């Protein structure tokens, strides 16, 4: 009977500290980012990602010249231009390493708190479930941006250390100067960050389903692998444009002259769709869920 009144009373309560929730959201986001990037695990993940370009660069440095057309794209260019380490490393990390690390972070968002028993304390504070969900997703997105950036910057750094750096030949045969090439590396990192947003939303939803974070992490990684396998099957061609991994290797379009934005916009639209769908699912699940831990 009294419940009909609750919204009103809560409304007045909200109105009295109208300034508080907004500040609270930002401070919650800030503390989430601090916790995420203060974690030893996050640093281990980023270090592992940074090790990929280092491994590639050292291997190329120690071995003889790579014949053109063998191995992943750009590998044969590394010995002439160190900046190609960044492109090669980002290319190599797309199918497994980036989804793996993002899966760990996204799968941990809600389930991790539930597993530690801290979720109910977070919700006792007048944060609200929706805001908590948004903040958690924002944290996962921050990692999505940090991960490819780490690969790209570590690649450029180790490449510059071990190999000469000079004008970069694009796929179109045109040549750009190193500062512009650095810009392209940042663009590709942004492309990959957008590419991983959909997977993060899937991970967030899976994370609301369980209190076992490892389960959500593993499920997220499996989803990314399944999506990529389906993308390889010619029999499922009708499905391909709908798979969130469909545009993952499309960042090559950012290495053409003039820049080809088609795959960037297509990818952004697709990822936005995934974020909307799985965000709504995560909302439905998390808001109606009984928080027991």
């Amino acid at each position, binding site marked *: 009977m009294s*419940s009909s009144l609750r919204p009103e009373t809560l409304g007045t309560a909200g109105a009295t500290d109208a300034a508080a929730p907004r500040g609270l959201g930002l401070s919650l986001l800030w503390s989430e980012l601090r916790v995420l990037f203060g974690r030893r695990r996050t640093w281990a993940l980023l270090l592992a990602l940074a090790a990929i370009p280092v491994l590639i660069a050292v291997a190329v440095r120690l071995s003889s010249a790579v014949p053109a057309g063998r191995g992943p794209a750009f590998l044969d*260019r590394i010995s002439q231009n160190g900046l190609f380490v960044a492109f090669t490393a980002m290319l190599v990390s797309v199918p497994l390493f980036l989804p793996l690390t993002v899966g760990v972070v996204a799968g941990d968002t809600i389930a991790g708190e539930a597993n530690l028993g801290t979720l109910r304390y977070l919700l006792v504070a007048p944060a609200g479930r929706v805001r908590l969900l948004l903040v958690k997703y924002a944290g996962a997105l921050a990692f999505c941006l940090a991960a490819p950036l780490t690969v790209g910057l570590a690649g450029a750094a180790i490449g510059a250390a071990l190999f000469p750096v000079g004008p970069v030949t694009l796929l179109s*045969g045109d040549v750009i100067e190193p500062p512009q090439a650095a810009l392209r590396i940042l663009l590709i990192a942004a492309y990959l960050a957008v590419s991983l947003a959909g997977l993060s939303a899937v991970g967030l939803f899976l994370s609301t389903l369980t209190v076992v974070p490892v389960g959500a992490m593993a499920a997220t990684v499996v989803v990314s692998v399944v999506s990529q396998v389906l993308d390889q099957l010619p029999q499922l061609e009708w499905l391909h444009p709908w798979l969130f991994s469909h545009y993952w*290797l499309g960042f*090559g379009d950012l290495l053409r002259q003039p820049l080809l934005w088609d795959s960037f916009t297509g990818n952004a639209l697709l990822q936005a769709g995934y974020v909307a769908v799985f965000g*709504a699912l995560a*909302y*439905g699940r998390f808001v109606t869920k009984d928080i027991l831990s």
Partner: protein
Amino acid sequence: MDYGSNDGVDGTMNRIMNGRPRQQGPEGSGADRARNRAWLRWVPAVTVPAVIAAGFLAGTIPARAGDPLPTKTPADVIALAAGHKTHTFSGTIEQSSELGLPELPATGPTAGPASADGIASAIEVLTGEHTARVFMDGKTKARIQVVDRLAERNVIRSGNEVWFYSSKDNSTAHLTLAGDASDLPLAHPGTPAAPRTPQELAERFLAAADSSTAISVGPDVQAAGRAAYNLLLEPRTNGTLVGKVAIAVDAATGMPLSVQVTARGASQPAFSAGFISLSLDQPDVALFNFVPPPGSTVEELQPGHPNRQSLSPGTPDSHATPEDLAAALEQKAGQYTTGSGWETVVAVPAEAGAASRLNALLAGNPLLAQAAVAVPGGRVLSTALFNVLLTDDGRVFAGMVPVERLQAASAAP
């Protein structure tokens, strides 16, 4: 929080509500309401996919662009197309073929200009899908970029200088045209993958259209977002595999925007090439100034280079369509053709060496070897739009005709 005051308000409200007996019944229990609200929480999860699906479906409905175009006769449309003067534009062309040939890897190690195997490249062009960006500035400046995944093949012409570049092996080829050359030399032996511009394709079809073909104008179509006339060509004979050719002619400029070739009895086109986007603005001039990138191997091609004479019978290396192939073969091997119009059969004698090259290719490619079916008298490479017969004695017969016609031609003295 301030629970005390809440309780106070609740208490007050309880008293107020008790004063309204009618509200008591429907009010129900708190658990019911919670359940109702829980149901509401899932509404976004249902509506978001529904909205996305609705948006997608709305996007697939072909946009009916305002007013219908003024009616034109086929002759008007052909004249419109023939008289178009659009030589400055940039656009994206998509080509797709479903000929029934096995797909070859689009970016194999042999895809570079210097090392390309002509026939294998031609078959690669004939299968699957290709996207190319085309930039043209007048008749003498052009750049075509064949967009592959993480690779690109370029043909750049500026005046008499023509450059070919493949990112796969970072190889460059250069050609200086004779002073009077006016056509675009897109038929480089190694960079055959440039889907032809719709212009070129359409002009060939229009030239070939004679009494053997019924020409009509179909309902208006949209191509690259522009309203276009739909020129339909249907062979009057049953002796060809081609059922229908549809050419979209831009209503505003007369520029051919797309070409679709449908096999006889099929509903979907077996071959289509057309602009998916088109801008009539002048492209950036810097695009046409090509300098070989550092570290690239540069091969100098002579205009009289043996590779350039690739139109010799039986080496269909750089022809994007079977019709092109047939036309080129006809041109070079006029004395070897039988039949006319759509039913033309091209016969290549054994000494031309084409058969041995084709056989070498078949031997080197198990997928293709599988596609070449043994028939009495030889083997047949069969596609939706054309057939190629390799006889046991080394001759080659090809045409847009059923296999029986080729066999009959091979049996004829």
